[in-house]
């Protein structure tokens, strides 16, 4: 399978950079899979799991939060505010995120804020059930 260049960057450091075969991106309007020669897309991402397939035998999963994905002819770049390997992820971390999101819902002072906070809370709930933690 053809490979393309993929980079995962957080504000603090470059987390992943290399040639990969396939990446599943949790886009805000639905997850999508990026293969080589994908058309240029720019999408915000929701909290979720990025699945990186480097080769048939080697793949990894990372939890990302807040950011966006940029598919260009040069490859795929994900800018994430936070990225944690799924192996290091546990129920406590997600619960903490979820609690923060629930507080945001309660604290929201206007409609736009409320909608954004609710969306985030629902996404996290969904993620939590998906991971079966």
């Amino acid at each position, binding site marked *: 399978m053809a490979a393309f260049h993929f*980079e995962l*960057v*957080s*504000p*603090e*450091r*470059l987390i992943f950079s290399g040639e990969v075969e396939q990446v599943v991106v949790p*886009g*805000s*309007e639905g997850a999508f899979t990026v293969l080589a020669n994908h*058309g*240029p*897309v*720019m*999408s*915000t991402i929701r909290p979720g799991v990025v699945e990186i397939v480097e080769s048939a035998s080697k793949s990894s999963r990372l939890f990302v939060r*807040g*950011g*966006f994905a*940029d598919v*260009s*002819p040069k490859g795929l*770049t994900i*800018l994430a*505010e936070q990225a944690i390997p799924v192996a290091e992820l546990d129920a406590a971390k997600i619960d903490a995120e979820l609690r923060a999101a629930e507080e945001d819902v309660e604290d929201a002072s206007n409609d736009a804020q409320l909608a954004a906070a609710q969306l985030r809370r629902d996404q996290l709930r969904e993620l939590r059930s998906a991971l079966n933690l």
Partner: protein
Amino acid sequence: MPSLKDLRNRIASVKATQKITKAMQMVAAAKLRRAQLAAEAARPYAERMEAVLANIAGNMTPGTGPALLSGNGRDNVHLLVVCTAERGLCGAFNSSIVRLARERANALMAAGKTVKIICVGKKGYDQLRRQFEKQIIELIELRSVKQMAFSDADPIGRKIISLFEAGEYDVCTIFFARFRSVIAQIPTALQLIPAQFTAAESAGGAQAAYEYEPSEAGILDALLPRNISVQVFRALLENAASEQGARMSSMDNATRNAGDMIKKQTITYNRSRQAMITKELIEIISGAEAL
């Protein structure tokens, strides 16, 4: 003419000072390496972010778009975010940033604009307080922060945005020292709101026909606030590296000065000791001759 004991004491005290400055220099050197690595590690994110924003902004008609990008059309109230260190003893590091900010503030006030100041770091606050007591709206201390993390910069970014949305100011500029090398830190003023992109990047903008999810404006809305935080984060990292660099070179100077001083004092000490011995000998000999 100081006595021998005075001289001895003075030499001992300069030696003690030299040990302290030497230790500070070495600590700064170690911290500098870490700060530099952190600044370099953060670069890819900020660069990508800027490229993408420039790309989208380049495609938009000027004057439209969200207020964070194009400003709110006014130019009356300026917010200056002055980032300095929490500690002194780092040469002209703090003063040079403060001087740049002060010049800007004075120029703006002379032009009849209103100035508001947020100080990040205690040293800048101490220096600016004398002249701009009324203009300073907040002091953010990062004293407890050892290694600058994005979570330290994010609240500052949010604060800047919420003030903007509340209509507290029209233009926001951040002041910090860009790290060039150990001996050169350049005090820099960077305009955050309205966002400015270098012409070269905007020119290379419209190369690919992107598909946007959810929409161009939606992405821009999500990105711009984050970009502010990223810029603040970057400024703080550059500042941290610059501070350690400045401290290292100024402590190096101090150590060398102390060395020179010790050498000079030792010579004076030896001279006056010899003079004393000679004097005593002369007294003894002339006493013996008189008999």
